[in-house]
């Protein structure tokens, strides 16, 4: 694949200023996302995994300019969004949408389902006749598996899974080219999760949609993604095609993460090697020197404390990148 990417991100950094420790202390800087680079092709799904506080949701929002990034480039269809002011970004927004974890909280309780789904359409195409808006909304509700009779009902009348379908219809109504999905199935019951995952995959096939799929659930990410990015404390530790990453993860953190995810098979659960990590992720306010993972890594050596490992590849950036001083030595866990 050498086509021009839909989205190309270079050295993205998102920094938050926090109140100082005391009243007159200078504000402290927290880098929630640090030096993140990747490319996304049209129709591709990039999974982003990592534990809470790793910056995955911040990254998703910063990509869509819903949060200000501090440094780096966000090149959308060849055009850097970073220097653009919000009025210049707004017309581009119809091409990139987002869906959230809590489907009910993301919907205005005082609007009918029809109005919720129609809102982006009315905003971006104010000249559209109401009959056309209505027919497109009906059409989209059908595509996400809701019956058009639901048009005049309110969000509270729906279950979590149905609300997520409404959120997806709203995101899809403008036929965007990219949807950032932030934990879209995590708040749903197991029997409903599969329905939403299938729906996203079907919409991707039908519309050639690119997805950035943010989740802590490795099985869901594995199922949907073409490539997977693993974040730790705001930095990319590994990014690789899905099958490679899950078959033979290179970064010790990815290895531990995959080993920790319980699978629904008691035999496997009781025999698989434990690569238990000790402790919790360090605070992003006070990250360790060098490699952020070294405090929990059994392979850590002197160089890990001194130098920050950069993302390296085997000559092909899209094939596999890993940020670890020692990955060649620890290939097989």
């Amino acid at each position, binding site marked *: 694949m050498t086509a021009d990417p839909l989205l190309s991100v270079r050295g993205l950094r998102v920094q938050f200023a926090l109140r100082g420790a005391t009243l007159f202390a200078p504000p402290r800087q927290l880098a929630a996302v640090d030096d993140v680079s990747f490319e996304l092709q049209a129709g591709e799904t990039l999974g982003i995994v990592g534990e809470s506080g790793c910056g995955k949701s911040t990254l998703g929002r910063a990509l869509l300019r819903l949060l200000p990034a501090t440094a780096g480039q966000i090149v959308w269809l060849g055009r850097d969004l970073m220097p653009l002011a919000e009025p210049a970004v707004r017309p581009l927004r119809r091409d990139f949408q987002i869906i959230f974890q809590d489907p009910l909280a993301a919907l205005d309780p005082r609007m009918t389902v029809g109005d919720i789904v129609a809102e982006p359409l009315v905003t971006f195409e104010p000249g559209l006749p109401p009959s056309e808006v209505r027919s497109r909304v009906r059409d989209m509700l059908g595509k996400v598996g809701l019956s058009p009779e639901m048009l005049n009902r309110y969000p509270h009348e729906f279950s979590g899974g149905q609300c997520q379908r409404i959120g997806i219809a709203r995101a899809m109504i403008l036929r965007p080219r990219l949807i950032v999905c932030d934990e879209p199935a995590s708040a749903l019951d197991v029997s409903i999760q599969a329905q939403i995952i299938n729906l996203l995959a079907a919409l991707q096939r039908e519309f050639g949609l690119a997805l950035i799929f943010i989740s802590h659930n490795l099985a869901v990410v594995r199922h949907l993604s073409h490539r997977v990015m693993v974040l730790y404390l705001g930095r990319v530790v590994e990014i690789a095609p899905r099958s490679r990453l899950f078959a033979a993860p290179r970064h010790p953190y990815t290895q531990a993460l995959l080993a920790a995810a319980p699978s*629904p098979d008691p035999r496997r659960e009781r025999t698989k090697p434990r690569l238990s*990590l000790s402790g*919790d*992720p360090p605070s992003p306010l006070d990250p360790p020197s060098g490699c952020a993972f070294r405090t929990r890594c059994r392979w850590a050596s002197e160089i890990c404390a001194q130098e920050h490992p950069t993302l390296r590849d085997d000559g092909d950036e899209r094939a596999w990148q890993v940020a670890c001083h020692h990955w060649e030595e620890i290939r097989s866990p």
Partner: protein
Amino acid sequence: MDTVLAVDDLSVRFASPEGEVAAVDGVSLAIAAGETLGVVGESGSGKSQLFLAIMGLLAANGRAQGRVRYRGRDILGLEPGALNAIRGGRIAMVFQDPMTSLNPYLRVSRQLSEVLVVHEGLSESQARRQALEMLDRVRIPDARRRFDLYPHEFSGGMRQRVMIAMALLCRPDLLICDEPTTALDVTVQAQILDLLADIRRDFRTAIALVSHDFGVIARLADRVMVMYAGRAVELADSQAIFDTPRHPYTRALLTSLPRTEPSDTPELPTIPGYPPNLQRLPPGCAFAPRCRQAEESCRATVPLLIPLGPGRSAACLKVSAA
């Protein structure tokens, strides 16, 4: 069998403005010392209310009926004084969210030692010493330094360790864990599950593990009970549940799970529809409206749990016919 907890035909009903709701309907189970029973189900399946009822912790509009015996002694409907002598001591509970279960105004040391002072009548200094030992035991790093901190100064994983330490202080013989790792990251979840496995081995604690996550259940449970709409629909050894699920609901749930191991099905098998509203349960089998095998009879008769072999039962008309 050294039975710690035996529940017979337990039902939980809540009064609501729209009439009575049966959150739990005729559930029976038993847990032996050193054994872990996994209870799995989706939201509204009654899995949490079942154990809240067992502990006498139902909300004010809830009413439990049936029989609950702890070591042969009836504990359902016991007056609070008598119940408090057992719960928190002999039977302990760990909840999903450790932050809301800990008192934010009290140091961890105080909250832990208080349990020993109340239940075991220890002196303050004895209690502090034992509490600190237990924090070490649940592998809180640097426990001595952290002992006198407040709950907010702990991370989520460490707070859950504190909760588990608190639950273990009086060496309970039954530990009820309701979604103990749901709020935690996977690497921390793995640590907590390892810890529970160690506790079971070292103290022969009976564990009831309530979870919506089949992975967590597979990791720890010896036997599994699957619940749907307030009823137990299948009960079997853990391996059997995962290898050869018999109830159509269990089977459908397991096949709808995405897996981390290779399986390149582009489309996940799904369960149509949504979990039922307990206020408007259909007559007959509650799963029938979503079941691909349902027939006319399923919509008319509520299926009972039918034994299918040693330790194995399922509540489905189609299974009994097979």
